[in-house]
């Protein structure tokens, strides 16, 4: 417990740690919320793909000195469109199309970053470097969090109905493709924010694991979003503590905490019925 007190003391003393915690909390909230829709739409692989596919955008933004959000969004959306294009214009299945497109983007990203000659950056992009968050980064993350919350509040019913029953949404005339690409755009923004906390490789864990854990505990979408955000915050905060205390990379530390929470839920949640507490179906 002394290490917990030390962590809290350090939080009071060091600005960099405060910035890290604030960023971790914001990223935990946004990835929990967006991740819920990703898993409910059966798009975990797509989430993984898009989060990797932003790499060339990040590289290009570094090289030419413009905002990394713009570069990442551009490549994220381009990847989403390409994946959809290849899958719909050929007999290739979507998961294969995802595999081809995202690995190509990822590879391109590596080459571009090595051309930019900043190998230290690369390591941070891949694994996260939450202890080096600038004030500028905090501002950007706060804006993205605002965008995510606004998006989900304004389009809640459209997100719900397209995630649950897309065919029905199409029959009443909803432009489901626009909702899909809007979600992909929001996903790329979240990915960029999460780069700092967990890094590109593990972004998918922040999207999927807290959401999957929340899914085990609730039958109501609104609660799932809230719970998933809370679990994201807990994972980020506790992960940051481990990272600081044991000098672990922040990304793996956060992801391991999220996975532990999932494991506990998997065993104890009533919905999962690990102990065969099966609820009966009333006829």
């Amino acid at each position: 417990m002394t290490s917990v007190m030390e962590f809290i003391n350090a939080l009071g003393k060091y600005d960099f740690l405060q910035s890290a915690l604030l960023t971790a909390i914001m990223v935990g909230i946004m990835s929990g919320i967006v991740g819920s829709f990703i898993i409910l739409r059966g798009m975990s692989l797509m989430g993984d793909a898009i989060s990797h596919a932003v790499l060339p955008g990040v590289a290009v933004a570094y090289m030419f000195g413009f905002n990394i959000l713009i570069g990442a969004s551009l490549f994220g959306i381009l990847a989403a469109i390409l994946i959809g294009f290849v899958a719909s214009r050929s007999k290739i299945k979507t998961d294969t199309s995802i595999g081809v497109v995202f690995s190509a983007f990822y590879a391109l990203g590596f080459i571009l970053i090595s051309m930019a000659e900043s190998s230290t950056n690369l390591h941070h992009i891949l694994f996260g470097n939450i202890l080096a968050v600038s004030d500028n980064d905090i501002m950007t993350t706060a804006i993205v969090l605002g965008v995510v919350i606004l998006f989900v509040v304004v389009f809640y019913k459209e997100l719900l109905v397209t995630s649950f029953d897309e065919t029905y949404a199409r029959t009443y005339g909803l432009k489901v493709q626009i909702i899909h690409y809007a979600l992909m755009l929001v996903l790329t923004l979240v990915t960029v924010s999460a780069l700092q906390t967990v890094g590109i490789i593990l972004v998918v864990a922040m999207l999927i694991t807290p959401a999957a854990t929340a899914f085990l505990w609730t039958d109501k979408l609104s609660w799932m979003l809230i719970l998933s955000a809370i679990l994201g915050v807990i994972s980020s905060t506790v992960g940051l503590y481990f990272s600081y205390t044991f000098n672990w990379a922040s990304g793996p530390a956060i992801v391991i905490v999220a996975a532990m929470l999932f494991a506990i839920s998997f065993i104890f949640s009533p919905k999962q019925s690990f102990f065969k507490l099966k609820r009966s179906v009333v006829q």
Partner: protein
Amino acid sequence: MLNVKNLTVAYDDTPVFSDVAVNFNVGKITGIIGPNGAGKSTLIKAILNLIKVRKGTVDYDGQSIEKIRKRIAYVEQRKDLDLTFPINVFDLVVTGTYGQLGLFKNPGKKEKQVSYDALKKVSLEEFANRQIGNLSGGQLQRVFIARAIVQEAEIIILDEPFVGIDLQSETAIMKILKQWRDEGKTIIVIHHDLNKVTKYFDDLVILNHGIVDFGPTREVYNSTNIESAFSADLSSVLFQEKEGVQ
């Protein structure tokens, strides 16, 4: 009247059906029957413009489907749905109001009241808070009927609504379909159980990779049509008894 003209659908150059022409009448319950793989669901999806159509047109009193989307309710096959989704019975019924609400408006008191009333009409109000995976097949189908009630549509299309459901639910649903018909709505039902065809449907479309025949049930439900859509064996089993009695 819902008019379908020259409708052709193909997957990878293999036509499912070509040049289908058929009408669905207002104030009638029309059944669509045909063997497995005859293209029944595909026809409905083509009519609703949910899949790519090679050629052909669909209109409702001269208006295109895209223009009248909000006046159509479609109850798809239950097997196509994710029953683990975190949504309860009541919230599912409320999604029926989304089309009328449009973007940026959320369901309010009025929409919730309408949804509750619809749920009552299918006798499921006590299940309002239950997650949809915890219902029987018949109950779930009634929930979707409640959603269609909420949509206040003029054209209601149901894909295999009676598959795997209890008799009580089937009767309850049929009662609502008849009510809708009497209110002058157009009801289209994809159906697989030939035994109840004459009891349930005013009009009938017999399909087997194209239209075998369509018209009033008592005119088109005969041994010749069933033989050409299904098989001679089935036809003789279904119609021999009747002819024997006569």
